[in-house]
């Protein structure tokens, strides 16, 4: 398999949009247990807008991801949408002007997103948030260059991250007020990132 380009971004968008339709209730429910129950709404609404406009995304992957980011800043004020947009904009900045990105770059791009999102949300790593999923992905894909190899590593990493953090207390966002209750439960944002990565990596089911 080859590099990531406009065509593969469009394919990924389609898979991701479908995944978010499918996981709408599951994500709302997970967020409902520890937060305000809107994570499915945030993701479906954002991905619907991304998908609607996917025909018009430019070849420049930087501009393409910027357009995706805007779908989230426009449709939602929920934390997750804003964090995703922040991460997408960080990646967009790195790949601006390029129409192709290699699988070998995935690790550093995910790390860039993680760092920008951490700066925005001021959460610590290990705090049982989406940052931990991204950190796991960045770590697991580091040094890997093959598309399949990267996809496998990323989709295993998001599972491992869930397992590693499940028994910790939530420390961030609305879930923090349910800190005790959150032990043994998955962080909704980590759960969403699990589904996102698997859809992007085409490692679902």
């Amino acid at each position, binding site marked *: 398999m080859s590099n990531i380009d406009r065509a593969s971004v469009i394919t990924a968008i389609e898979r991701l949009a479908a995944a978010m339709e499918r996981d709408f209730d599951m994500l709302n429910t997970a967020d409902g247990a520890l937060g*305000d*129950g*809107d994570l499915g709404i945030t993701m479906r609404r954002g991905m619907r807008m991304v998908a609607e406009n996917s025909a018009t995304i430019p070849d420049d992957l930087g501009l393409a991801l910027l357009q995706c980011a*805007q779908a989230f*800043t*426009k*449709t*939602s*004020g*929920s*934390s997750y*949408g*804003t*964090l995703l*947009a*922040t991460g997408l*904009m960080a990646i967009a900045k790195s790949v601006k002007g390029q129409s192709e990105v290699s699988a070998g770059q995935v690790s550093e791009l995910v790390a860039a997103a993680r760092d920008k999102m951490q700066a*925005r*949300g001021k959460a610590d790593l290990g705090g049982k948030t989406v940052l931990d999923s991204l950190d796991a992905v960045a770590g697991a894909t580091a040094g890997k260059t093959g598309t399949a190899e990267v996809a496998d590593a990323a989709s295993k990493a998001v599972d491992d991250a869930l397992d590693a953090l499940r028994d910790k207390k939530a420390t*961030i*966002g*609305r879930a923090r*007020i349910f800190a005790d209750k959150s032990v043994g439960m998955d962080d909704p944002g980590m759960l969403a990132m699990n589904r996102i990565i698997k859809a992007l990596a085409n490692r679902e089911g």
Partner: protein
Amino acid sequence: MKKILNNPNDYVDEMLAGMVAAHPEYYRLHGDTGKVVARAQKAVDGKVGIVTGGGSGHLPVFTGYVGTGLLDTCAIGDVFSSPSAEQMADAIRAADQGAGVLRLYGNYGGDVMNFDMAGDLVEFDDIECTTVLLADDVASAPPAEHEKRRGVAGMVYAFKLAGAAAEAGGDLAAVTAVAQKAADACRSVGAALSPCTVPQAGKPTFEIADDEMEMGMGIHGEPGVWRGKLRTADQIAGEMMDRLLDDMPLKTGDRVSIMVNSLGATPPEELYILYRIVKQRLESVGVEIVMPLVGRYATSMEMTGVSFTMCKLDAELEDLLKAPCDCAFWRVG
């Protein structure tokens, strides 16, 4: 659900439509998202803009305080949800009269992320922005971590004081300094007796027995410091004053304004019952009360409960507090 509404998804849009229809002399909707409220008449060129934003369901906070001597614009989200970064960016643009814009709002994770993101978005427009966060709820974190505290009714004082400074012609640095001084001068604490219902959720934000109260609960139902049997008005007022005065000790000759605020359903009758004790306590330590505010200034729809906010005044802040302001919910001068 004891609420009067149509489709829960339309709650905020219909509320805003009705609000601007009822008060066209004060408010207009700006932009195409339908969720940015601006003054009916834009302020004079060169006035520092003040923007706020946050979730709906707290009227008069946030939108209600758009008005002369107060805010310029406000981005409003769904009930208890942050507006989007794009809406905030729109609100910042609409607040700009060429002298920069102060973002003045409460310390909630989502709002902070979005206002920061909105700042990135308006960078291209060359609008100079500053930020002051309200973090006045003493029950939400100890003094050592005061910057983690939630922002509650103290923002009403901050809107008023910064708004007056801006109206008086202060530049962005000066208005920001006043807002920060105001934020630092405010301490709040709340107590809740019954929850409210977020329309889209359709069920109360928390459960509580009919004979119980919760001290220190947040305006969205964030857990407080204790839950127990409902106490008397005098006990409640006494404990709340203790908590405020522990956090910001006052001495003879100090001047403060104090807000005794209903979270929604608690009627003014009961606020006045509480105010007796508030006044006694402050006067007993020789503190002078300036322009007490007793009413519904920052609410959570039909939640039952109260909050007290103490705002310590120096000469500058006192003048600004007494300066005129005008919106559909509050008028001074």
